[in-house]
């Protein structure tokens, strides 16, 4: 029996608490990815960020990712928590924590999960600058290209 969880919350994230929640009795290592708000993106200063989600679909997609991760990697428990709303610089936006009997699988699964979350889970980030704001569309050129290959992107 795994002890996975996936959540979306407007509250601040406690990385240590999330990592602890997935510790099973027979595992030796947890790997945790902690993503947070950068102050500078390409030299431009971000004042704060706003995250918005299509919540029921985002939770479904997170659940699918965890299910796929269990098939791909020998892991025990997974925790994925994404924060929504307004985030200050340095605040944690996402935590992904994976416990496994062998650390190699925990590293691989954690890295795979953050890559896929950024590609498939319907959550959007708005960067707010001193002189304007911008919804970020896609994680990066590369990951957008991968998204296009798998989903149909309707480019009219």
């Amino acid at each position, binding site marked *: 029996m795994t002890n996975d969880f996936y959540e979306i919350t407007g509250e601040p994230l406690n990385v240590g608490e999330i990592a602890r929640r997935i510790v099973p009795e027979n595992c030796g290592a947890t790997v945790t990815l902690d993503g947070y708000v950068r102050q500078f993106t390409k030299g431009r200063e971000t004042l704060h960020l706003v995250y918005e989600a299509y919540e029921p679909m985002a939770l479904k997609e997170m659940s699918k990712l965890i299910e796929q991760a269990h098939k791909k990697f020998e892991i025990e428990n997974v925790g994925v928590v994404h924060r929504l709303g307004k985030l200050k610089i340095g605040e944690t936006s996402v935590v992904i924590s994976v416990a496994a009997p062998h650390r190699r699988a925990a590293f691989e699964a954690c890295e795979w999960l953050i890559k896929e979350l*950024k590609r498939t889970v319907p959550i959007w980030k*708005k960067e707010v600058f001193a002189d304007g704001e911008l919804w970020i569309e896609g994680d990066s050129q590369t990951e957008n290209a991968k998204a296009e290959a798998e989903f149909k992107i*309707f480019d009219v």
Partner: protein
Amino acid sequence: MKVKVLFFGATADETGEREIEVSLAKNTKANEALAEILEKFPRLGEHKLLFAVNQEYANGAEFIKDGDELAVFTAVSGG
């Protein structure tokens, strides 16, 4: 038949809407439904769009049913 259409982030800003109701002919496919939505909100066409039907990514070929929940949004940027 009537369906609900949701917008998020950039698409909510472009349309000025977060949720609308749209009437569609019977046997409308997902790509046809999207084309109708784009006719109402031409500025959405400036974005690369993803489209979901009942909280699942759509490829365009799905038949839309009465009461379905559609969503139109840009490439995701969580994390």
